[in-house]
């Protein structure tokens, strides 16, 4: 368990690298939209996991889609990691969270790696590469850095690349961030929970698993050269859900002995068994501002808020996120939530 001082330092390291942290708001994934929906488990889900939301009864869900960048400037059309945080509201009044992003693998293995990354990948001025240097890149069969977006003057890209050049475990995550693009819709991206969890089946068998949400409408990005889109994702989602429900399938991949269970930088092979655990239907983007806040902004998701039947692995980043999310929640005045029905300290 990461102690409170380390969790605080983690959050401070993130905030320290933001152009303008926003009091009362999440330091990263600041821009987001709350959505209501319903999850129904598949007929096989209960054979793999005893968690309440996998037993087949429809479970109401609150979720928040978000852009990864910190700050109040909304740039939907910029290449950026997107978030999909889901809270399953269980019948006993508790909940189970599943936090996923469009980034399949993380770029650091543990807290020490993260602190080093934060020192190297600082915000730096970001300018268009000179055309002569671009020609030199082409002659060397290299791809030059992308052009800055309109109004983009700073970026961590160069620092992140320097870190990746020095640490091979980070290269996949950082490379994927570079290519991630901008989705046509929050409902047309795949989201990955990255970390390994352990699920317990009715017969007591525990399995290491990783979760992903796959959009039923398919994955689609806007063309990379299209820089005219900047604020479209919220309205797109509202109009999409008004026309017909948007859906995601929850896929659970089962790891094998020898797979990286505690290392979020390492992917699992495509040859692993994957189970369709259920379908999430997005039903409403609340329009009333108070309903919208309740559906998204006020909820304090935590990747370690897990129903009985699901446990966190020993992934050091997952452990660190438990504390970091709580520190962030306290800093912005987010609502605490009962972790278990018998938690006497919670409201």
């Amino acid at each position, binding site marked *: 368990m990461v102690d409170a001082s380390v969790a605080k330092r983690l959050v401070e390291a993130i905030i320290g690298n933001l152009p303008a942290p926003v009091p009362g708001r999440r330091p990263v994934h600041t821009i987001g939209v709350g959505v209501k929906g319903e999850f129904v488990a598949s007929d096989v889900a209960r054979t793999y996991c005893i968690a309440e939301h996998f037993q087949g009864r429809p479970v109401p869900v609150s979720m928040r889609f978000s852009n990864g960048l910190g700050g109040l400037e909304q740039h939907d059309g910029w290449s950026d990691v997107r978030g999909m945080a889901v809270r399953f509201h269980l019948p006993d009044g508790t909940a189970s969270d599943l936090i996923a992003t469009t980034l399949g693998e993380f770029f650091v293995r543990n807290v020490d790696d993260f602190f080093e990354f934060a020192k190297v990948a600082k915000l730096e001025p970001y300018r268009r590469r000179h055309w002569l240097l671009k020609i030199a890149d082409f002659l060397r*069969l290299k791809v030059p850095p992308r052009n800055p977006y309109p109004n983009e003057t700073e970026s961590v890209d160069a620092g992140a690349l320097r870190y990746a050049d020095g640490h091979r475990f980070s290269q996949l995550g950082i490379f994927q961030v570079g290519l991630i693009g901008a989705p046509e819709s929050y409902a047309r991206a795949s989201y990955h929970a990255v970390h390994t969890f352990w699920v317990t089946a009715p017969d007591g068998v525990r399995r290491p698993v990783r979760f992903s949400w796959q959009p039923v409408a398919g994955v689609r990005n806007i063309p990379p050269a299209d820089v005219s889109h900047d604020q479209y994702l919220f309205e797109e989602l509202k109009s999409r859900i008004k026309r017909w429900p948007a859906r995601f399938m929850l896929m659970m991949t089962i790891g094998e002995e020898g797979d990286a269970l505690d290392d979020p930088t390492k992917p699992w*092979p495509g*040859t692993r068994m994957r189970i369709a655990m259920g379908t999430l239907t997005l039903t409403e983007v609340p329009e009333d501002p108070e309903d919208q806040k309740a559906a998204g902004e006020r909820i304090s998701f935590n990747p370690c808020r897990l129903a009985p039947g699901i446990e966190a692995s020993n992934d050091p980043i997952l452990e660190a996120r438990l504390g970091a999310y709580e520190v962030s929640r306290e800093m912005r005045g987010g609502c605490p939530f009962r972790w278990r029905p018998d938690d006497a300290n919670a409201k």
Partner: protein
Amino acid sequence: MPMPSDERAIDRWVDRLPETRVFKFLASWILVPLWARLTPVKPLPGGPHPSFQRGDNVQCMMNLIMPLKDKSPVGRAQAALAIAQNKDAIFAGLNNVGTVHFARFVIVGDNICMFSVYDGDFTNYIRDFIATIGSVFNAVVELVEGGEAVIPCENNVEAFIQWVHERDLYQVPDTATDFLRDQEALNGDRAVSPVNDDLTLLPRKLVLQLRANANVSLGSGYRAYPGFSAAQVRERLGLGW
């Protein structure tokens, strides 16, 4: 307030440069050969990446590309006939071995290709088929460049297995960075951190590798039911043995 763009006409022209025919010609005929000389890469070996894990040893992919000796419609017809005349032998062999999910012979240009999905170890897979359908292999390989050296396959088992392995395509990993790890491993470099890499060289490394390995299989392939052997699928579907 949007800031004025600093993009000039020369910037737009340079950004479009790689898509122009002139640049593509320059890249293909001058730049790639030049960089292949300056930073040579070795061909990467074909077949699935070795793994002791169960999921990696079922539904393995084999992608054989075998150039025909006779590069004409007659040559291609002979290859098609060699398969058609041995249909019973092929089906009997596949049913008896029981580890093959799918197998196809395909003619692409002047090549006869064999694409299959099988369970277990590669050498055992080829050995099993030499034993059950060796005559079919002989009929096909006789039509292929260099094939006479390893037939009859029943008498040249080890050489035949090696020959097939050399024609099994390199399977480019699902992630670009795992491809870099394959190149590094071939050069004996297994360092993780600290290193002094240059990720911006990835495009060049990929281009040069695809020059060394002209035919490749892209990614690990999509599987509707990964992790299951042919025997398990047949058992669960009640298809008998």
